């Protein structure tokens, strides 16, 4: 059992204090110097020094001191010194402090008594405590509540010691008596706590005899009561009937902490709908009444738990939960929407959507800076509502279309994607959506939104009037042709910043547009920057939106415009009986295409048109000049079909996910089944009876360690020295979250006694040795287990190296055996994780460290190579499998993982199959810290070869 640590203090190593100095100061007369010396001594102790020589000085010079600070520091000192020898026996000199402690317990100063009693709570050595017990008991009846409080706690911890029940046989009796007369709320709580932990029966008895008074008890006591109820009911389900009434009484408590606890207790006790409802109601009330964001978030977590276990009850409370949206905090709003979205039923959908709509409208008027993001969240929420319940789409789609021109690009994109899906799935809404879209098209500011909206227009304008107005709208948005006039070309070329402005003056009768910032000017289809956090698009409504976008050099949009117009003209041929009109439209379109190309090849813009867009525009022109039925079919039907296919695939994936979720088995066929009624019988170990709260606490304090696979254990044994070395050593390395434990077995292979054998370790990388292993003496051919703890603070490859140093009796010189290095594997720290595409791209753009590894492998198949990499670096592939389908000789995939320290590791794999069948390309690793990027890179270089 490792020693527990009660305090940590930062210690500046720059000013080392020497034991002798401390000793002198302690022996002196200057009180403040003495106090300082004492503090220094404590800090040295915390830092791992043992300072055995100081003990006697302290006993002689500090113990008798009357100064209060001194006495308190002394208690801290006693708290941290080693009180036992190597075999666990109490050191004989500890008797010296007993007398002092006893004097303190009878000290006239009540605070000295109190802190001494508190110190006893942290003491584990029964030999020291035993003589003090009578004094402790006396303090139980002291006049001052401060003393009684601590005395009760002291009694409790003494009783809890391994043999404490023999030291204090009648402790429960005494405490019960104290409890019946005690008036101080804190002392009363402590007394009840003592009964609760040491004699649960008595605690329940006390509770049941005072059932009517519970609501008048102090808040602290009520909390313990609830804890008791939970514990009793967990071990003995049948008892709960008695306690529900108490909980209900406490639900009306004025203290919110108690109410919160009550709700939790109620849920753990009963699964009756009323009980769950009461608990959920309580949470909802807290959600509204508490202004603290932390509380709100945690209460939402509780509601979320309730949702998954008692969905039917929570469905009725959906509107109460939704009221949390009034908080301006995005995290809260997001959590609330997440909960609500899973609670939607046909019965409440209308109400919910109504409220969401109201919230959306509210974001228009409010001046809050986060409104944009919030609106995006709301739009996504409405979107998923509409997918689940298509009938609500009609009520929201028009409202949402108001936001197509939103200055927040992300939410505008969400809207347009939503509209695209609805128009396909809800054919009834098509006409109204198209009319609306054409009406509002001029408001759209962002290029991505524009292109998506154009696609919708191109695909879904079917009737003659629609097609005609669509063409008219686009034309209007493009403005008058040409985009620039050749005469001005000369002037316009000088400064790239000025050019668009100059050109627009000359070509357009309207006011020149204020153009988008540089981000958009350089945007192309493949650029990464488009995924950086949404930027606000500036621009005036006066000039056509398409025109101003084109003038910033967005030729991808130009290509989209070209395709849309082509599509519309092709459709016009079908629906327009008059050939003249069709030809007119065709020529107008051709003119537009030509002017775009001209703009692209002019020097007005800093960047000329990219090849891809150029090709597409030219293709459109060819098509318009020379149409065939086959091409027509491709343009007018296949495009739509593949969209339908995409939607259905998405749906399929979602349903599959749902199915997979439903199929998660809750219990394996060979799992043990716990029968509550049999549980209290003997034959079950205490461990099995332990409940989740204790587990929770144990996990938190790190006591709870899962049993690892034994077979795995053997794989991790590392040989540190050779078989022919005088000392053989091997280590078993366990990696916990933040620490590495080295379990080193040292065997003396000589016929001599090795003295002062010491395992000296040093580390490289972000590792820190916690405490130095001790020196040992090793008899001939005997062995010894040495443990060393190493702390890890970030994900990085670390190396531990060291020596074993020892002396033999005849030769008085130290012998050194150098150990093998121990490499700590980064793979122990990262685990596959999932993040959204946008999040990945944002991080990719943000992270500073990139490690680029050239692919060098014997594997010939792209997908096989991807799988090999995924397997060897333990990451999750974010790219959907459908995107990886097919054989094209190229493959690009994103991988993601998270370390236990919460660091992100991003990997992008881009490979191409060469003509000779070999794979080439790069693997890029990005992370926030250098360590991960480097070590992951090393790992990949090492493993990528494959072939085995």
């Amino acid at each position: 059992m490792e020693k527990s640590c009660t305090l940590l203090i930062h210690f500046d190593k720059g000013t080392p204090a020497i034991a002798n100095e401390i000793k002198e100061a302690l022996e002196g007369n200057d009180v403040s110097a003495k106090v300082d010396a004492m503090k220094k001594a404590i800090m040295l102790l915390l830092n791992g020094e043992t300072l055995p020589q100081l003990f006697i000085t302290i006993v002689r010079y500090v113990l008798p001191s009357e100064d209060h600070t001194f006495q308190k520091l002394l208690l801290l000192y006693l708290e941290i010194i080693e009180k036992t020898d190597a075999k666990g026996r109490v050191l004989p000199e500890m008797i010296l402090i007993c007398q002092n402690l006893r004097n303190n317990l009878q000290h006239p100063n009540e605070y000295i008594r109190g802190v001494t009693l508190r110190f006893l709570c942290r003491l584990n050595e029964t030999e020291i405590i035993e003589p003090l017990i009578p004094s402790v008991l006396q303090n139980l009846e002291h006049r001052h509540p401060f003393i009684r409080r601590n005395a009760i706690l002291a009694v409790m911890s003494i009783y809890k010691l391994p043999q404490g029940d023999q030291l204090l046989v009648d402790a429960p009796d005494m405490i019960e008596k104290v409890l019946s007369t005690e008036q101080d709320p804190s002392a009363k709580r402590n007394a009840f706590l003592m009964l609760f932990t040491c004699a649960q029966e008595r605690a329940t008895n006390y509770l049941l005899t005072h059932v009517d008074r519970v609501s008048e008890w102090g808040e602290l006591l009520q909390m313990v009561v609830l804890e008791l109820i939970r514990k009793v009911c967990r071990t003995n389900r049948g008892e709960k009937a008695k306690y529900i009434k108490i909980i209900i009484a406490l639900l009306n408590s004025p203290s919110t902490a108690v109410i919160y606890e009550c709700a939790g207790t109620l849920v753990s006790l009963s699964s009756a709908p009323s009980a769950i409802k009461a608990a959920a109601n309580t949470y909802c009330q807290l959600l509204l009444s508490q202004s603290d964001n932390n509380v709100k978030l945690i209460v939402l977590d509780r509601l979320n738990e309730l949702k998954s276990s008692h969905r039917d009850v929570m469905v009725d409370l959906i509107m109460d939960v939704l009221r949390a949206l009034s908080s301006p905090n995005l995290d809260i709003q997001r959590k609330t929407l997440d909960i609500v979205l899973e609670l939607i039923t046909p019965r409440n959908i209308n109400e919910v959507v109504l409220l969401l709509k109201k919230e959306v409208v509210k974001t228009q008027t409010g001046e809050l800076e986060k409104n944009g993001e919030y609106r995006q969240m709301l739009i996504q929420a409405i979107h998923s509502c509409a997918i689940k319940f298509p009938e609500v789409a009609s009520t929201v789609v028009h409202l949402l279309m108001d936001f197509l021109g939103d200055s927040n690009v992300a939410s505008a994109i969400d809207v347009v994607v939503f509209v695209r899906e609805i128009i396909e799935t809800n054919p009834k809404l098509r006409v109204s959506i198209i009319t609306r879209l054409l009406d509002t098209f001029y408001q759209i500011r962002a290029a991505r939104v524009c292109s998506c909206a154009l696609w919708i227009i191109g695909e879904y304008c079917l009737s003659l009037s629609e097609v005609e107005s669509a063409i008219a709208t686009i034309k209007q948005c493009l403005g008058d042709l040409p985009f620039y006039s050749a005469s001005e070309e000369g002037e316009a070329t000088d400064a790239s910043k000025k050019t668009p402005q100059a050109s627009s003056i000359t070509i357009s009768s309207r006011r020149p547009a204020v153009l988008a910032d540089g981000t958009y000017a350089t945007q192309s289809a493949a650029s990464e920057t488009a995924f950086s956090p949404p930027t606000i698009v500036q621009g005036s409504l006066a000039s056509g939106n398409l025109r101003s976008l084109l003038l910033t050099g967005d030729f991808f949009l130009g290509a989209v415009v070209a395709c849309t117009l082509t599509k519309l003209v092709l459709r016009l041929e079908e629906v327009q009986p008059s050939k003249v009109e069709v030809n007119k439209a065709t020529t107008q379109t051709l003119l537009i295409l030509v002017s775009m190309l001209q703009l692209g090849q002019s020097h007005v813009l800093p960047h000329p048109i990219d090849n891809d867009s150029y090709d597409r525009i030219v293709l459109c022109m060819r098509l318009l000049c020379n149409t065939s039925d086959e091409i027509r079919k491709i343009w007018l039907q296949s495009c739509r079909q593949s969209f339908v296919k995409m939607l259905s695939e998405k749906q399929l994936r979602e349903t599959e996910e749902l199915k997979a979720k439903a199929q998660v088995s809750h219990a394996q066929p060979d799992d043990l089944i716990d029968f509550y009624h049999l549980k209290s019988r003997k034959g079950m170990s205490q461990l099995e009876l332990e409940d989740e709260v204790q587990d929770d606490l144990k996990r938190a304090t790190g006591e709870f360690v899962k049993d690892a696979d034994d077979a795995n254990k053997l794989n991790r044994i590392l040989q540190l020295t050779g078989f022919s070395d005088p000392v053989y050593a091997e280590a078993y390395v366990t990696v916990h979250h933040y620490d590495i434990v080295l379990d080193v077995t040292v065997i003396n292979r000589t016929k001599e006694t090795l003295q002062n054998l010491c395992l000296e370790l040093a580390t490289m990388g972000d590792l820190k040795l916690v405490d130095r292993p001790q020196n040992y003496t090793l008899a001939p051919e005997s062995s010894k287990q040495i443990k060393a703890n190493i702390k890890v603070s970030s994900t990085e490859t670390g190396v531990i190296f060291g020596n074993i140093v020892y002396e033999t009796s005849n030769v008085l010189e130290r012998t050194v055996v150098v150990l093998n290095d121990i490499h700590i594997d980064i793979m122990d720290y990262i685990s596959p994780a999932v993040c959204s595409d946008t999040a990945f791209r944002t991080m990719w753009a943000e992270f500073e460290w990139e490690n680029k590894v050239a692919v060098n492998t014997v594997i010939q198949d792209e997908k096989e190579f991807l799988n090999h990499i995924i397997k060897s670096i333990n990451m999750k592939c974010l790219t959907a499998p459908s995107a990886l389908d097919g054989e094209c000789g190229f493959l690009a995939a994103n991988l993601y993982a998270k370390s236990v320290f919460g660091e992100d590791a991003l990997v992008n794999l881009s490979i191409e199959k060469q003509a000779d069948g070999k794979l080439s390309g790069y693997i890029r690793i990005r992370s926030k810290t250098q360590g991960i990027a480097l070590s992951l890179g090393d790992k990949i270089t090492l493993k990528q070869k494959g072939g085995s």
Partner: protein
Amino acid sequence: MVVLAASVLSKSGKVLVSRQFVDMTRIRIEGLLAAFPKLVGTGKQHTYVETENVRYVYQPIEALYLLLVTNKQSNILEDLETLRLLSKLVPEYCYSLDEEGICKTAFELIFAFDEVICLGHKENVTVAQVKQYCEMESHEEKLHKLIDKNKGDKGGFMSMGSGRIESSFSDMSISSSGSGFGSSSGLGLTADVDSFSTKSKGRQLSSATAPPKGLGMQLGKSQKTNQFLESLKAEGELIVEDVQPRAGQARVAAAAPTDPITLTAEEKLNVTLKRDGGISNFDVQGTLSLQILNQEDALIQVQTETGGNPGILFKTHPNMNKELFSNENILGLKDPNRPFPTGSAGDAAGVGLLKWRMQSADESMVPLTINCWPSVSGNETYVSIEYEASAMFDLRNVVISVPLPALREAPNVRQIDGEWRYDSRNSVLEWSILLIDNSNRSGSMEFVVPPADSSVFFPISVRFSATSTYSDLKVVNIIPLRGGGAPPPKFSQRTNLITENYQVV
């Protein structure tokens, strides 16, 4: 509901101070604290982080983080309250809120944290109280020191000594009002007042024997609660409305009988004596009970012998053969074939066979008389008490409890036969005499208290026990009804006289 640790970290993640309240290893706490700076995000509007195992609740203070590490089931509302209190405390102790300032006052912070959280549980304290606790200014200690000094000066220069005391008293009052009633809201004194007031409250409650609590209130709150309970019941939830606590196992089990048959004759005394002599009530109630361990021994009769006291009337249990008892003093069942009920060891009382009662107005029957003489002289009251025991009994464990006026200190006992003890919580002086026999049939005690009305010292209550009884009932023999010549089974006999209510009013 447990706070694992309270810590102060610098923004860069350096641990400046950390105090743990539950047992955890150093590597664990250091790991947790090292992980924290990586977990805390920026731009968040909440101040908690949850990991798989723990929850961090923090508050930024200038260039520092004040951090509580709790388990995940901990009550967030309570933890925030604790954090708020701690955040108020830190600036109280640190002059500059930066690394250096914290390091300098690390120990003071630890002491303060200790006052707020006890073994992981929150204490109900305010900033001012914590300050008071940490200052450790104690009146009692000062008084104690004065007394010590006084003792040292005794016999020497009295006048000088008292002068010095006076001056130091005035010093003290100034200092106490300075720290007390000044700006920092007089905690030194209010705490004392609190403890007194709660004490008096406690007494009121106990004397009022817990009035039937809030019947009206129950009706008031009922409507909603009852509905709730009803619906819970309707949903099949078991609810017990009136919960009876299980009979307390606190009752000290009498030494379990080891003999197959045990007979207990017990007499209880109810006596009220007047303070100026005479009896207002004297009543003895006796029972003879039988306890049989094994079924085989249950067919018996009991041969008794009474002391022949004419004032005592015996009444047998309805199932007993009355004639047999009145003629031959043998206790047996009416139906000789029925065995006596056998009782388990847990049931200490056994089966009652016989009851008797004695009343008297004869003062000579009283086993112990108490005389209490309070007399006021000057500004002190002298109280002398004496007891006189009749020769009938040897009394054991006699405790005479004299109520006193509320005192700061124990009364000054001038003379005593026996021992005394002062219970300051109930302000009762207990005079105990282990045994009263022929060597000490009378005794006295004298003590001095500040002036008080003589009625304060009443009612004096007395407790004692004796091994002989008024009735002198004895069991002579056990007659087995079956088994012919078999020897009578072994039996043990206990005789006990105890006081139930023995008062001098």
